[in-house]
C-alpha cells in the first residue's frame, strides 16, 4: 500500500510540473496554431534564470519568479514581433521548422555561454524530504506544485474574466470572427506568445530546484510536453493539466508495477489509445 501511495504521490507531483510546461505550449497553439519547438529552450532559460538569481543575488528561486515571468513575457512578445510574425504566413510546417532552428540556436548559445558544466540548485531547506504518513515528498517539488496551482488558477481567471483573456479565447476559437468583432488579432497573438513564454519561464523556475541545469535539457522536456499537450487536447489549458497529471501517474505506476524499461512506452501507448477514441485529445474541441 505504501508503495502504491508513494507512486501516486510522485506521479501527480511530477506530472503537474510537466503540465505547467505544457500549459504555455497549448495556449500558444490555441491562438496561433503554432507548435513552438523552442518552448523547451524557454523553460531552460527560466531554469538558468532561477540559478543565476540564486548564485548572483541570493534570491530564492521561488521568489525570483516575480522577476523572470515579466521578463520572459516581454522577451516572448519581442520574439513574436521581430521573428515569428514574418514566418507565420508561410504555413504551419515552416513555422514549426523555424522554431526548431530557433531552439537549436538558443540551446547552443546557452552551451557556448554557460558551458556544459552540470549545475544544480541547492536549497538549504530542501536537503531532506517531508515524510507525511511515511510518503516521501521532496520540499521543492511540493512548493513547485503549490505554486503551479496558483499560477494555473490565475491563468484560468485571466482567460475567463478579463477582457484580454476573452479576446484571447475568442481568437483561439475563430480568428476571423474575432477580428470581425474588433479584436486586433496580431496584437493578441503577440500577447499570447508573450504569455506562453512567461509560462514556460515560470515552469522552468519551478522545475529547476528539482532537476538539474543543462543547456540542452529543453529537448528532453519538450518530448514529454508534446505528448501531454496533444493528449489533453491542443489549445486546452485544462487538457494540458489533465494530460500532465495523467502521464505522470501512468509513468510512475507503470514503472513500479509493469517495467521501468518500458515506462515511456506505456505512456506513448496510452497516448495513441486516447487519440484513437478522442482524435482531438481529452478536452480538445473538434478537428484542428
Amino acid at each position: 500500500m505504501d508503495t502504491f501511495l508513494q507512486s501516486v504521490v510522485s506521479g501527480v507531483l511530477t506530472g503537474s510540473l510537466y503540465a505547467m510546461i505544457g500549459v504555455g505550449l497549448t495556449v500558444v497553439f490555441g491562438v496561433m496554431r503554432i507548435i513552438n519547438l523552442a518552448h523547451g529552450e524557454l523553460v531552460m532559460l527560466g531554469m538558468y534564470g532561477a540559478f543565476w538569481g540564486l548564485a548572483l543575488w541570493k534570491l530564492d528561486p521561488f521568489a525570483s519568479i516575480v522577476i523572470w515571468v515579466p521578463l520572459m513575457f516581454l522577451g516572448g512578445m519581442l520574439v513574436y514581433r521581430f521573428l515569428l510574425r514574418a514566418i507565420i504566413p508561410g504555413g504551419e510546417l515552416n513555422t514549426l521548422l523555424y522554431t526548431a532552428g530557433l531552439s537549436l540556436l538558443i540551446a547552443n548559445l546557452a552551451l557556448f555561454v554557460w558551458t556544459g558544466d552540470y549545475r544544480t540548485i541547492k536549497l538549504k531547506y530542501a536537503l531532506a524530504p517531508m515524510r507525511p504518513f511515511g510518503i516521501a515528498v521532496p520540499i521543492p517539488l511540493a512548493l513547485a506544485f503549490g505554486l503551479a496551482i496558483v499560477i494555473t488558477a490565475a491563468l484560468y481567471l485571466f482567460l475567463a474574466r478579463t477582457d484580454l483573456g476573452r479576446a484571447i479565447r475568442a481568437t483561439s476559437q475563430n480568428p476571423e470572427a474575432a477580428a470581425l468583432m474588433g479584436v486586433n488579432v496580431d496584437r493578441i497573438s503577440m500577447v499570447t506568445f508573450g504569455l506562453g513564454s512567461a509560462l514556460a519561464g515560470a515552469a522552468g523556475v519551478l522545475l529547476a530546484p528539482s532537476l538539474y541545469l543543462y543547456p540542452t535539457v529543453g529537448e528532453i522536456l519538450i518530448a514529454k510536453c508534446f505528448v501531454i499537450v496533444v493528449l489533453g487536447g491542443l489549445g486546452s489549458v485544462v487538457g494540458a493539466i489533465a494530460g500532465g497529471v495523467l502521464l505522470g501517474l501512468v509513468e510512475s505506476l507503470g514503472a513500479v508495477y509493469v517495467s521501468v524499461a518500458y515506462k515511456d512506452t506505456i505512456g506513448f501507448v496510452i497516448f495513441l489509445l486516447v487519440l484513437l477514441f478522442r482524435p482531438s485529445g481529452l478536452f480538445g474541441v473538434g478537428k484542428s
Partner: protein
Amino acid sequence: MRKFLVVGVFLSVLLALAAPAPAQDTLKIGAPQPMTGPDAPFGDKFKKAYGMAVEEINAKGGVNGKKIEVILEDHQAKNALAATVAEKLIAQTKVLVLTGGRASGQAVEIASVAQRLKTPYVVDHPSADIITSKGFEWVFRNNPTGSIYPQAFNKFISEVPGALPKSAAVVYDNTVFGKTIANSAMTFLKSKGVPIVNDEAYPVNSLDFKPVMTKVKANNPDYLLMVAVATTDAILLTKHAKEIGVAPRAFVGFGGGFGVEDLAKELGPLSQNVFSSAAWSGNPNEPAAKEFYKKFQSKYAIFPKEHEVEGYSIIYVIADALKRAKLTGNLEADREAIRQSLLRTDMTTVFGKVKFGNWAGPLGDKYTNQNIYSLDHSVLAQWLDGKLLNVWPKANAETNAVFPDNTVKR
C-alpha cells in the same frame, strides 16, 4: 533586391567558411569527441587532458624532433557523424592515429572505420567489449572493458568479511555501457548465490527516478547498485534513492557519472559513503600520479579523475609508439609502422602499465589488442567528505572504506 543581398552575403559566408586551414608539419592525432549535446562536458575533459599532454611532450622537444598535434572534431554523440568525422580525419586531415570517441556507440563506429581504412585507433575511454572483441587488428585499447569494471567491487564483497550482499538491487542505464556493466556485476553476484531483487533498465538522461526507487525500496535490498554513464543520471539516482528512503548497507555507483567531481559538488552530503566503481584513475600512492593530479588541478582548476587520466595517458602511449616507429612520410606505410609499434608497446603511464595483448575477458569475450593489465585497472573508490578516495584493493587504497553505510536508517 534585398533578397539578392541576403543570398550574396550567405554565399560569401559559405565560401569564407570553406577556406581550408593551413597545413602544418606536425604528427597528427585525430580525436572525435562530443563537443556539443549532453555529452559535451566529457568532450571538454578530454580536450583539456590531451592539451596538457601535448604541451608537455612538445615542450620536451616533441617526438623525434617533430611536434605532435591533437585534432578534435565534434561528433555530437551521433554514430553516423562519428563515422563521418573519422573518415574526415583519416582521409582529409590525414592523421596518423585516432583516439577518443568517449561513448561506446560512437567508438564502435570509429573502430569499424579505422579497421577498414587501416588506421590505428588507440582507445582511451570507451568501454564496450565489442570494440576489442571483434578481432580488429587496427584497434587497441588501454582502458578496461565494461565487463571488467566491477572487478574491484567483486573483490571487495568477496574479501571483506561480512560484505557479501544478502540481496542486491541493480539499476542501470539501457545503453551498451550500462547493460555490459550490470550484466557483468550480476553474473558475478549470481555465481556467489546473491539474489538479485531488482533488475531495472532505465532510459539514459531520465528526469525522474522516484518510481524506480519506489520499486526498489519495496524489496528492501541489502545493496543498491546504480550504473550511470551520464553524470545527471548518477546525481538524480542517488538523490532520489535517498529521498524515497532506500536503505541498503551500501550504495554502489558504477560508471563515469559516479566518478566525476560534480557528483559530490552537486549532491553535497547526499554523496557521503557512496561507492564508485568507476574505472581506474591511477594509483594515488604513486608519485607520478600525485604529480599529475597536482599539475592538472593548478592548470585547469578541476580535480582530474578517470577521463582526464585516460586522455592524458593515451597521448603518452601514442607518442611512445610514434617514437619507436620508423616514419617515412608515406601515410599508409607510417600507419602500419605505428601499428607494429603499438603491438610492441610496453610502458607505464600515469594511468598504469600498458601492454596490448590477446586474451579472454571475465564474460568470455576474446579480446584483441586489449591492455593485458586491464584486470588490475579496476578500483573501488568511495566518496568521503566530498573527496573520491580509493578503498579497494588495499594495494591501491588511499583510506579505509566506510561500511556499512551510516547515512541512512535501516
